[in-house]
Structure formats: C-alpha cells, structure tokens
C-alpha cells in the first residue's frame, strides 16, 4: 500500500464536511496506521515517515499515538499469531495454564516472536467468546474449550504442524 495514495476525503467520510483540512488528516491517523499494519504486518519506520509527510503530522506525534494503542506494533510478527485470552471468564477457567504451556513449548514469552518467525505469542482481553472459555486464537481463528492437559497438548502439537 502506498501511503501517498491514501485518500483523505474518502477515509474521513461524511463527518469530513464539518472539519478543517488538518482535522481531517489528524482524524484518519488511526485508520491509516491500521491499514499500514494490515498491509505490512507491523509499522515500519520508513512508512511512518511517509505518513508523517502525507498527513502533515510530526513523526513524534505519530509515534505518540501509535504507541498508545495496544494493537500497533513496531516489529514484524510470526507466521502464526497465537493469542491467549486472559479475560475474566477464560482466566477463571484456566487460560493461564494454556499460556504457560505455550510459553514452555516454544520458549517464547508473551509478545515475543520465535527467532524463526514461526510463532508470535500474545495475550488479549476478552474476545467475546467467553462461552467457549478458555479461548485462544490462532491467526484470528478461535479455538475454544482448552481445558485439561490433553487438549492443551494436542493444541500445541497442532501449532507445531503446518
């Protein structure tokens, strides 16, 4: 995705009619960052510099916003992104155990990526599938009901596979 091609009017939508040029540019900042991340998997500095010129915002301001929100990353991610839900419902049904098991099996800590870029481990707050607690997502596919060491082991084995 070319940052320069980002249409400001089109991104800001109808409320744009109420706003000044700079307000519009500022207003689409988070959206723009989301799109960059979707495209690249993370926020590369070079792209942010281009964005800074395009939106007429200083790079420090962009970093200040991007670093506030939890979804943005400044480093690349692994092929499989595993997110363990530590929301209440999952926590009380034992998602911590799932997390520990993955940490041990792949020798990664939370928000780390394995050196071979195979797996990134993250935690999330509730993802709204509490009925299936404890829940883990692998590349946004929800895997629920990971109760008991056997299920957890099978899950870890499936992570190792292609």
């Amino acid at each position: 995705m070319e940052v320069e091609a980002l249409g400001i009017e089109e991104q800001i939508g109808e409320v744009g009619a109420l706003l000044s040029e700079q307000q519009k540019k500022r207003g689409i900042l988070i959206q723009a960052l989301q799109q960059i991340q979707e495209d690249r998997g993370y926020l590369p500095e070079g792209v942010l510099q281009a964005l800074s010129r395009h939106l007429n915002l200083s790079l420090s301001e962009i970093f200040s916003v991007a670093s506030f929100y939890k979804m943005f990353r400044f480093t690349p991610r692994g092929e499989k992104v595993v997110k363990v839900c530590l929301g209440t419902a999952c926590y009380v049904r034992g998602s911590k155990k799932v997390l520990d098991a993955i940490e041990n099996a792949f020798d990664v800590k939370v928000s780390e990526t394995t050196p071979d870029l195979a797996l990134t481990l993250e935690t999330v707050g509730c993802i709204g599938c509490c009925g299936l607690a404890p829940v883990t997502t692998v590349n946004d596919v929800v895997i629920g009901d990971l109760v008991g060491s056997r299920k957890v082991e099978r899950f870890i084995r499936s992570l190792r596979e292609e």
Partner: protein
Amino acid sequence: MNRLHSLHELAALRKELSAKEILSPGKKRMRVCCGTACRANHSLALVGGIREEAHNHDADIEVISTGCQGLCELGPVMTVEPPGYFYHKVTPERAGDIVARAVHDDKPVWDLLFRRSIGERPAFFISDVPFYVKQQRIALRHNGRIDPTDILQYIAVGGYKALEKALSSMLPEQVLNEVKAANLRGRGGAGFPAGIKWEHTRRAPGKVKLVIANGDEGDPGAFMDRSIMEGDPHSLLEGMTLCAYAIGAQKGLIYVRHEYPLAVKHLQIAIQQANELGLLGKNILGSGFDFSVQVREGAGAFVCGEATALVASLEGQRGFPNPRPPRLSEPGGGPWGYPANLNNIETFACVPSIIEKGATWFLKTGTTSSPGTKVFALTGKVKNTGLVEVPMGITLREIIYDIGGGIIGNKKFKAVQTGGPSGGCIPEQYLDLPIDFDSLEKIGSIMGSGGMVVMDEDTCIVDIAKYFLSFCQAESCGKCYPCRIGTYQMLQILEKITSGKGEEEDIEKLERLGTYVQNSALCGLGKSAPSPVLTTIKYFRDEYEEHIREKYCRAFVCQGLGQVSINAEICYQCKRCIDICPYEAIRESNEGFFYVDQVRCQRCKACFTVCPLGAIEIHELPVLYIDKELCYFCRNCINICRVDAIKETSTGFMIDLDVCKKCEDCFKVCPMGAIKYEKEVRLLKAGAAAPVTIPTWQEQPVGEITIDEIRREAEEKTCAVQKALTFIEEFIEGPMCGRCYPCSLGTEEAKIRLIRLSQHLGGASEDDIAALRRIADFMIEGSYCKKGRDTGRFLSELLSTAEEEFRLHVAGTCPRRECISSIEYVVNPDLCVACGACAVRCVYDAIEGRKGDPSEGVSPFEILRNVCVRCGDCVSVCPTGAIEVISRVREEVVPTE
C-alpha cells in the same frame, strides 16, 4: 434495491415483503446461528451443508444465518420451523439428517434436541430450554431471528416502523419526551437517563451535533453489544436515527472495538443497505431530515470506552480522557468541539421499541427506578453460559440457578462479579436481591455493561481481586497519578499477600489507597478500579486475613502460600503427583520415598488435588534462622544451598528469607545444629482423598497386607511356579489397585499363565515362560508404584534363578511335587461300584462311564487324563474311596488324606 422516497413507500415495501412470504409463518425455515462463537464451531459450513441438501431434495427451505442466539456454549445452535425445534451442538455433517427430517415428516432429529440430563425429556423448542424460560427480549428482540446482512428481513419483521411513526406523526420533542418518560437508563455503565442526556445535547447551542454509539465493549466477559452489532445492526441504526431526529443531529459515528471485525462488517453492510433504501443519508424517506452514519474502529485500548477518551480517539489523538466539564453534550466537549450525544449500543437498541410501543409499554417491565430489561453476559462457573436478557428486578439467584442452571459440578456458590473490572463482588447473602441500577450500587457494585462472572468455592477471592485490579492497572492510560501509581501500589500489595508475604496492616493500606484512588482519579477507569478490591475486602475480609496471618489460601489458588509436602506414611507411590506436577518438583529419594523438592515447587498445589489418598499436606512455611552462638562457619550450609539464600555478613551467616525456599537442606547438613526453626510448623491442611472410587481399593483395607508378608508366604512354597503363583494371586487379591496397566493386566495374565504351567493344562509351553519374563520386565519399568515394581522384580528373580524348574513344568513335571500337574487321579477298578457320583460332580466332564448295578457286574468309570484338572472334587464324593491319587513322577501312590 430502490430508494424509498416516502413513508408510504416503506409501508408498501413491507406489504410486498409479506406477500413474498419473507419470514412469513408456516414456511419451512431454518435459522442457523452464525455468531462469532458458533462460527468458531463451523456453523458456516453447516449453513452451506443445509443449503446443498435442500437443493438436493429440491425443497423450498428458507435458510437464515442469524446473529448470536445466546446459548453460545451449546453452539452451533439452530431452529427448524415448523414447528420451531431447537437443535444444539449441530455439526456440519448433520445437515443431511436435518433436511431429510424437515422434508419428510417434520419430526425432530432426536439426538440434537437439548436435554438437561440423559434421563429427562428433551426440550423441543427454544422456549423450553431452561436457559430461555425467564428471559424477555427487548434489546435482543431480533437477535438470532433474522439475517443481519439483509435489511429486508429487518423490515419484514417490523423494522423501521418506529422511524416511520416518528417521522410521520411525532415532533422531535415528542420523541425526546417519550424516551424521557420511559426513563430509559444508559446500559453502558452508570445508568444515566438517556432522555436527560438527549435533552442536554438538544439544548446545546450550535447547529452541528453528533450522535455517537459506544461499541468499545472492553469489559472482559461482556459481549452483548457485539452481539447486537453483529446480529441486529439495524436496531442500532434505527435507534441512532431516532436520537438524531430528537436532538437535531446530522452525523452519527459508531465507535467499534478493534477486536470485533464481524461487527464492523455487518454494520457496514447495514449502513450501505440503509443508505441505498434511503433510510439513512439525505432527506430520509422524503421527510427532509438528513442523517448519515459511519463506523470508526478503535485500536485496542480499554480506556477508549470512556466518553472523553473515545472523543480523543475519534479525533486521532492518544486516547486520554479529559476532565469534564465541558461534557460531551456541551460545545467544546464532543469531537472537534461539536456537542455530541453518546450512548451505549444496547441503549440505542432499546429506543425503537419504546417509540413504536410507547413509554407506558416500556415502563411495565422492570422496576420503578430502572424500567425495561438488561442483557447480561453470564459466564464463569455456571453450567449454562451465554447472553441473557432479563427484566430488571430479577434476582441473582434466578439468573444463576434458573437460567444459568447452577454452578458447574454442583459446587458451592461463592460470589458473582457484576460490572466487569469496574464493578464489585457480590457475596451469597445478596443472591435474593432484586437487581437494578440502584440496588447494585447500594451494595458497592454496579450494573456496568452487564458482565456477570460467577465464581465458586474454588475461586480465591483475593486472586480474583488481584486479577481485576491488574486488568485496570494495565489499561490505565497513565494520564493521572492516582490511577497510574495508586493501582500499581495496590497491585503490589495484593501480590505480596497472595505470595505469602502479607503483613498485618496491608488490608488497611489497601482500603486507604483504594479510597484515595476512587476519589481522585480523573476518569471512570481509575475511579472504579479499586471497587473489586474494596468490595471483596468488605465481604470476604476473613479470606484476606487468612492469606496474611495463616498464609493459607482456602481455594488453593494462590501460589506461594504454605509448604507442600508428602506424608510418606500414607503415600503408596502411585505417581499421579509426579505426572501432574508442572515443575517436576516431586522426586524419588534414595530410600525409595517420594518427596517434594521445595526449590522447584511453585506451590501450585496441583498434586494436592490429584492425590487419591490425601498424602499431600500443606504446612505453614517454616522460618529458619542461624543461631550465631552455635555456628562455627563451616560453610556447609552455604555450599548446599541451591538458591544462595545464605549470606555472609560482618556479624556471621544469615538466611535471606525472601530468597530461601524452605527446602531445609541446610538444616540437615549443619553439624552444630545451629540452624533452627523459629517456631513449630503447623499443619494447615491435610489433603482429603481425591474423589476417585476404585472398588477393590475400598472393599479391602489393603494397607494391612504388605508386599513383605506376601513374599514370606510365597517363600514357604518349595516349587518356583507355586511361589510365583502365590505371590501373584495374593497381590491381585490384596494391594493391587488396578490403576496402571503393566500392573493390572500384567498380573492377571501372569496368573493365567502360571496356572497353566502348574496344572499342565493344554497348551502350556515355552511361550508362557517368555510371557512371564516380559510381564515382569514391564512391571519393573512401567508400574506406577513401588508395590507393582516389587512384584515384577520378584517374578523376574524367580524366573532367572529357577528357570529349569519352569521348563520342567512345561514338560508336565513338578520336581518338587507341589503342583497338581505332578499327580494324577485314577479310578481303582476293584473298588468302583459305578454309582456315577463322581461323574455328576465333575464340572470339567473329565469322568466317563455308565451307571450300573454292582450285583450284575459293572465296568468301572474312567478319568480322562487330558481333561482332568486335578481339582480333587471327585475324591470327596466317592462312597467307596475308589479314586486314588498317584504321582506321575515316581509312579507311586500319594496318600490322599
């Protein structure tokens, strides 16, 4: 879709739809839940399968992919009309059965119907499922009934009627007054009356106004807003439009949590369809009223659910909250300074019904101060979890026990947390409290967005408080000190308490800090963050005290409380604790006992819960110190300590208690006895035997027969085969628990093989000896406990020392003449009177002959050698003593008596 230019055209469209039989009664129709949870369980494949099957059967079935139907745990769920059967846990493979049934005879697919237990009658309809019985749906009225991606279905079930009514016959003030009269209170947290908020915004100066829907649902455990956005987006749009009409706003924004991609997608489809039909956009339904709506996605910050932070985020700033005033409804308060009215998703979803049916209708439900219904997300340790919409004023007991089906495993209820991390813990004594906004606030909790997490006796209250606090602490945006530093400090104290280092004044410190934070934090996040801690202290103070004074966690959740050890007198080494221990802390000592290595043990207490005998005990943590008078600096303790807890100071050696793992290694090596306990260690909890029932184990007081006794008994025999057989038989009778295979299956097989050898039954061969050797090896290696392994060893020793003897048994001789194979029974023809008593008695049919009269002369009975098992029964029944026992080895008569 053609744009509708007038109210008239909307009514006409609705009529047309009913003529087309969209959602009309009586038609064959299947509603398959395609909410996020059911999707995760492959409901999309199910929909595909049903469509395909319907096509194959050439059947006219309306298949609707709906939003969440509320019983996510039983998903994928679906209903089949006529007559409305409710199926649960439907896998895609069942599509064929379902369609075939529906096409042929409208009977249900029995095994997909929901049953509470196997013996009970199934629930045929969704309304029979206990989970639904007490529910009443206003906000979720269409959820799970229509396809959220098709505006026509919403219209067909009466959607946009409220807008039609408002535009045709109500002035904006009237709409506003209706909402005010209905006393609709905000469903997003504080329960502020929506009508009053609308009025503020309406009165604000300036022409430009905004309507914002808050879909940032960040409370862990809550998912009602998602379910509305995904399952019935038009309700939200209609509610927002009505609000805009009432307050004079032109633009609407929906701020959706980043984690809800499906909600964003469905909202966007809905907005586009509404635009096309002219239900949004310029000159809505020809009324001259303009209103446009757009979706904005959040980026993963809980605090952005707070109104002012949400505004900052919409503007593209860091999501910091701002002090109020100005409120959002005032100039300078909303995004870019425009006055804005912000409400929760569920609040908006209630509006259409209120306008359509009137405030008086709405007031009939719920309590006086909080009319209407509330959607709760019921989760935690209840049997049925999911979304429930209930009238305000219902009791917690009804929700948890009637709807939720009670606590999982019929454990004891402990507490319920309402309102997410900003709410409070409610203890058992309030189970019968009718809940609404005010009653919950009175007991220190809040309604919040409707999260409801149920906890049972296995949940540690301090741990839960710590968890909620750590959530808020991590989500604190860091703008104000009380929240950023205060919550961190509180968390540190809780951490201290749960790791067994709590001190007397900690509870008071928590209370003091909590109150400071509550009073001085800038936004709702900080203000409410201490609530879970404060309410749990209020209602469960004794548990906090137990953690601090006794260093004991009654739910066995808190790691680091108490010292775990194994009582060697009880332990019979089944190895279950070794298997479960995640830290490999249970080891076998040189003497063959199991013990807990305190340096490795993390005190998770997993072993405590699995031990079938209750051999695992939890003691108070010992406090060791070095008596300086006695110590002569030999350094033995320093050398043995694995965690370097013993420090050299200018005045001598000292144990650093924070580092010390209480393994007591130093105590054992000190030649001077200089290492001492500060006080005697109390036993806090001896394990109760875990609830496993093993019949043989319970019937016989096994502890009484030991392996040694069995060995002694076996040694009394002279024949090796008999020794082995006695040992194995006694072991099976006595100490074997049958839990591990090498032991349980192995000994049984060994017994059969040994009997075969000793009795020289058909087929006894070298194979039997090989098999015995294999069994012995397996048991030595694979048996769980020492008893099993000892049995294996005994067998193996015998096999190697007396191999020749075993061989001879294969050939049919017992050199020591102890086995029955070495004897034979024969009928002495001179004495036999042919009475036939022996033949009747023999259960093996080994005796042949014809009954006769002795006076006429008889042919004597005969014993078939190869069938006879030498049980000796015939000897006892023969009236003349004609059956004799001879030794096969020496061919001599053995005296029978």
